[in-house]
């Protein structure tokens, strides 16, 4: 088995000093390269907090985190910035493109941050990525002149430009309609398959979770369940993640039909 991309042990996070919120209460997690994982759980269970710590955007109150074999907790803020730029990709719920820049420029942004200078090679790579996410003819559109789904696809291309081994996404389809959600998900899955990029995706969408390699369930700041989804058949997965919707699980229906009804 390949060495893990990410190893978190006993991560805790306490917000506030007077009124203390224990957002994480000792999380242990290992992510392997090429893995496509979903984190699910009720609102307030600590998913975003965990993802931000895994992405080095925030520091845990205690516990250790190793990324690509390096102990992240010992790095300075500036070292972390460089580490993020080189090794991690982010996709946020609210797209978070820079509205002043075009789609192409937004995709190039991480390379500018890295080298301080643009290069022709990077520009052609960015175009390839925009083509990959299906925005070949929107390259020079301002970010604000794109639809929500298009913006999110630009964000995916941006997350990929520095060829990170791990992409962290916090509810990337959270405010997209179901059809666009499907497209964005397929795209991420595609990239995962072709480029072997590992994904950790926080999602409320059970549909997406169901198609992941692995499902991580959180509750009250702890990982309560962690199981492979790829190995199971669809019914079993649905039974696990959404038993209340699974009225038809025991009936003899086609998988597609079940899915359609669930939507």
């Amino acid at each position, binding site marked *: 088995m390949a060495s893990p991309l990410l190893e978190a042990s006993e991560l805790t996070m306490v917000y506030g000093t007077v009124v203390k919120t224990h957002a994480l209460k000792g999380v242990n997690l290992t992510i392997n390269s090429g893995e496509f994982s979903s984190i699910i759980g009720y609102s307030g269970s600590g998913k*975003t907090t965990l993802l*931000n710590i895994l*992405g080095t*955007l*925030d520091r845990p109150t205690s516990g250790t985190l190793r990324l690509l074999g390096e102990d992240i907790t010992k790095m300075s*803020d*500036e070292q972390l*910035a*460089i*580490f*993020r*730029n*080189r090794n991690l990709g*982010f996709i*946020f*719920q*609210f797209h*978070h*493109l*820079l*509205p*002043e*820049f075009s789609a192409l420029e937004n995709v190039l*942004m*991480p390379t*500018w*941050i*890295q080298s*301080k*200078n*643009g290069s022709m090679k990077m520009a052609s790579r960015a175009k390839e990525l925009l083509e990959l996410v299906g925005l070949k003819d929107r390259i020079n559109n301002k970010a604000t002149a794109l639809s929500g789904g298009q913006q999110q696809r630009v964000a995916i291309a*941006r997350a990929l430009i520095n060829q990170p081994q791990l992409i962290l996404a*916090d509810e990337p389809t959270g405010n997209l309609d179901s059809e666009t959600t499907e497209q964005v998900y397929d795209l991420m899955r595609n990239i995962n398959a072709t480029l072997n990029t590992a994904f950790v995706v926080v999602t409320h969408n059970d549909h997406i979770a169901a198609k992941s390699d692995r499902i991580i369930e959180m509750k009250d700041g702890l990982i309560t369940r962690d199981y492979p989804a790829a190995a199971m058949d669809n019914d079993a997965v649905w039974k696990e993640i959404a038993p209340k919707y699974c009225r038809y699980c025991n009936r003899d229906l086609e998988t597609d039909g079940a899915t359609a009804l669930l939507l």
Partner: protein
Amino acid sequence: MMFELKIALRFLKDGRGQTTFILLGIAIGVAVQIFLGTLISGLQKDLVNGTVGSSPHMTFSAAETADASGLSSANGFVASSAGNFSRQEKTLDNWRPLLATLDQATETTAVSPVAEGSGFLLKSGERWPILVRGIEPERANEIYELKSKLSAGTYVVEGDQVLIGTSLAAEALLETGDTFTLELPGGQRQSLTVAGIFDLGNNSLNETWLFMSLSRAQRLLGFGDDISRVEVQVEDVFAADLLAEAYEKQFIGIKSENWKVQNASLLSALTSQSSSSLTIQAFVLLAITLGIASVLAVSVVQKSKQIGILKAMGTSSASASRIFLFQGGILGLLGSVLGSGMGYALTQAFLWGTSIQTGEALFPLEFDPAAAGTIIAIATVASIVSALFPARRSASLNPIDVIRG
């Protein structure tokens, strides 16, 4: 192009209205600074020129030391009083080396030796007290611009041909070509002819001055080869005092005078005018700086989402602050270059506007590119400094706060 500069430019371009207004603000401020500066320096130049434009800026005469007089008499030069006047100035003997040095100095623009003494003009049984000034015509003209100030006759100062002033000519009823008698304190008399009549724009000079050739004046006044003083104009009138002092040290036995001593009250007026102009300029600069600081402080809040995303993607805090320092610098540089253009246009408009009626501007204004360059540099630096506070806020922004929304 540097990444931070790229972001800074785009932020400015995107905030079109805001950017335009602050640029206009800076430009107007700088235009005022430049116009005011040009106006004040033009006014001062005009004043100084009116005061010392056609008179000596510094003069060198014999120092009144016992040693010098002893030496002079030992050499047989006339270092004593000429004629009966006991308060007559001491004459300057060994003056040719001084003249040669002054001629060669790059700081000087005109050098003129003068032999001076008093006398009386006699005409039709009347006497007018006058001041005989022996000159070398071409050299004296460089200081007094006599050629252009002749109201009658020609500029001939040689032999018995002399120049007198308009007032004297009117009182003694003299015209060009007329002759009169000059009586010197010693009692000797000399018949002279009026070659030209000058108007120096000063009644007392027009009434008393008489220009004749240096050699004749020396002979009539009994100076031998001596002169009364060397009169000098210099390139930089405000350095006249320092220059005069330097020559006084270099040449033993001479003493100097300069226009600054004689015009102390004018100079102090000019100084206080300059300092009030500087004060205004400083406050304009302060207003510009505050304007930029407030615009960028607003911008850092407006762009906090973008800064947060950039930081999440790996932009360092130092980079994040540079984005705002660049914005400050760009605003300052662009605004002040624009303002310099406007300032130049204002000076041209002033020259044109004040010359409509008279055909000649109120006073000459000279747009000084070096001064404009200085103002641009100061404004740019001040703008960068004013961006420090927003830049620090940008540096300390936490990406988490932005990403959480």
